[in-house]
């Protein structure tokens, strides 16, 4: 029996080896097949908390587009925001089931371009889209355009008018006043966080860094270097992390919180202040804070100054694998036209991507005014490089803030570690 067994084992091994040679991990080239003038265009947009008004605006724009183009059908799917990264990666990996147009967050642009997902539409966009320079920068990688801005998102300081009035406090004019007011509120109303902050709330924390003149990273030529351990950045990190503690927002509760948790704390009446976006208005109005709050720009270091906010927002881009490229670009233009952006603002409160459209919007809707002022004062974007996507996904900054507020590391040590991890990601 033994020789037989050995021979069989050899045959099995040989078969396995043949299998091994034939099966390398798969890649998808993502090259466009054709540019068809008819057929079905598939569109993926984000599903918002209250999506109905968005659907109506989009349906009108799509109807107008379909009327102008014979033999074209448009299918719009609303995908959940929480799982968008997986869905988009799956679309990149399998072009046959991928849509032609996608909505994407502006911090993802560089990563999606490197992953071969988005089409370069510079040539088609000779007539500039309705967007200002900052919004256009968020669709630009190495001088090429990879989509058009849909709306701009920016954060400001929400505060409870009733609580501040009862305590005789004015809205804070500097970050130092903000911290003092937060402590005073928590002392007098122990059930309330003075200001709700979160260890995982990167875009709430970064304005503190930028207000001090610091930054997460700086660009020299084509390479990025972490700057979060610069003295100015550290001063900002120190000022933000000082808000965590039993005198305002206890670390045991607040270290784990992210942006949505702080908004939720404010909306449910557990916080007197919070940093939240124009796009969070519906969530706040859905809780007991409704009608008892106001919004001002987040102050900077000097009275009257505004802390630079993160330039957020979403774009719409054409997938490289699309077989209806010309049609897709056309639909992208009509979905991001000035008219659609205006209607999206009226329906959803999303700020238009161009400055003059925003100012007109603020006149129609006073709620938008503090956000427009924040945008006009200047915003900062995160590094437009694929490395940033890795830093974001690797939770580098939330880990850094959490290490500090939980007392594991001091500011110098935690920022140094984070800078090292960021530099590794930039080099990759």
């Amino acid at each position, binding site marked *: *029996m033994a020789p*037989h067994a050995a021979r*069989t084992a050899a045959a*099995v091994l040989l078969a*396995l080896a043949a*299998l*091994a040679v034939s*099966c*390398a*991990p*798969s*890649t*998808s*080239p*993502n090259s466009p097949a054709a540019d068809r003038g008819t057929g079905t265009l598939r569109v993926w947009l984000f599903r918002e908390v209250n999506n109905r008004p968005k659907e109506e605006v989009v349906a009108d724009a799509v109807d107008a587009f379909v009327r102008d183009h014979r033999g074209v059908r448009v299918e719009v799917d609303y995908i959940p925001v929480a799982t968008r*990264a*997986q869905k988009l*990666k799956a679309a*990149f*990996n399998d072009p046959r089931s991928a849509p032609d147009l996608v909505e994407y967050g502006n911090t993802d642009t560089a*990563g999606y371009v*490197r*992953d*071969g*997902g988005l089409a370069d539409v510079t040539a088609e966009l000779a007539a500039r889209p309705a967007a200002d320079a900052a919004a256009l920068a968020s669709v630009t990688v190495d001088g090429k355009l990879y989509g058009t801005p849909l709306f701009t998102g920016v954060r400001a300081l929400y505060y409870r008018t009733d609580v501040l009035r009862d305590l005789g406090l004015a809205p804070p004019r500097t970050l130092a006043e903000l911290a003092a007011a937060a402590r005073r509120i928590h002392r007098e109303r122990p059930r309330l966080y003075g200001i709700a902050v979160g*260890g*995982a709330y990167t875009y709430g924390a970064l304005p503190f860094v930028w207000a001090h003149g610091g930054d997460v990273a700086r660009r020299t030529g084509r390479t990025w270097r972490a700057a979060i351990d610069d003295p100015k950045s550290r001063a900002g990190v120190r000022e933000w992390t000082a808000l965590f503690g039993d005198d305002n927002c*206890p*670390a*045991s*509760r607040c*270290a*784990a919180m992210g942006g949505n948790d702080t908004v939720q704390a404010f909306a449910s009446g*557990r916080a007197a202040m919070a940093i939240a976006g124009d796009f969070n208005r519906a969530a706040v109005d859905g809780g007991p804070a409704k009608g008892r709050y106001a919004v001002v720009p987040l102050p900077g270091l000097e009275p009257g100054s505004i802390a630079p906010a993160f330039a957020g927002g979403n774009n719409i881009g054409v997938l490289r694998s699309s077989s209806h490229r010309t049609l897709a670009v056309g639909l992208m233009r009509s979905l991001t036209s000035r008219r659609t952006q205006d209607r999206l603002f009226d329906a959803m409160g999303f700020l238009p991507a161009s400055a003059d459209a925003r100012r007109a919007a603020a006149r129609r809707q006073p709620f938008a005014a503090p956000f427009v002022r924040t945008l006009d004062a200047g915003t900062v974007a995160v590094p437009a490089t*694929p490395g940033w996507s*890795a830093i974001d*996904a*690797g*939770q580098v900054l939330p*880990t850094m803030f*959490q*290490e500090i507020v*939980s007392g*594991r590391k001091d500011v110098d040590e935690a920022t140094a570690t984070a800078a090292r991890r960021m530099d590794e990601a930039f080099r990759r």
Partner: protein
Amino acid sequence: MNRNTRPWTPWLYLAPALALLGGLLLYPVYQLGLVSVLDYTQAQVSGGVPTSFRGLANYREVFGDPQFRRALVATLGFAAACVLATLATGCAAAVLLTRVRALPRLALMLAALGAWATPAVTGSTVWLFLFDPDTGPVDRALTALGLTGFDGHSWTYDRWSAFALVLLEVVWCSFPFVMVTVYAGIRAVPGEVLEAAALDGASAWRTWRHVTAPMLRPVLAVVTLQSVIWDFKVFTQIYVMTNGGGIAGQNLTLNVYAYQKAFASSQYSLGSAIGVVMLLVLLAVTLVHLRLLRRRGEEI
């Protein structure tokens, strides 16, 4: 008829099973190993960047990461604690089942089966709610009992307290399997043996330790192995209850860490390297376990 004339006959019969195993087990493991020695990220999958061979560089990178070493140690310790707690709870509940009347036995069975049938995500969310610092009944009950220190106490802030909370959930949803299996095993123990022990005046503990447990050894061996494998691979509970690995990653286990590398950061080759390490650890634990059993003259 000579048995040796058709040496390939057994292989013929085994072929369907081997083909199935090859397709569903060997091939994925082979791909895992292959990807773990390549430079394979989303840019290679869809970005047209060529795939290159990195040799053991991915493994060096993984082992050079202090977070990985911490997660490895935490996973081993956490899995060991979970296995011990699950086995102890499951065996105790099984013994209890044999000693109560029909109605309480039915109630205990139903409660345990309910826990077993609950999806891990749902169970974790419910446990998180029970221990919520703001609205959770546990903090409220402790405060009402006069332990005012627990007013608004966060159970997931401290590393060990967070691990303990997850451990409770893991035990809660996995002890029923142990309980049911061991209960079936105990039922199969001949009544005369237990009667003899009782006549000899053995206490409950002594009966368990020297009569029931030795007869249950094959059953215990299987549930131990199952628990080791399940608990080493714990993902959902950690991911849901500590929000993806806890404050500053303090509650990361290997599976969650691999998920973050492979899928959140799209570094598929690093994720695969971690997967291979997990596979080897589990294989080693399993082989040692089987060897120990065999040395004691038992076969599964």
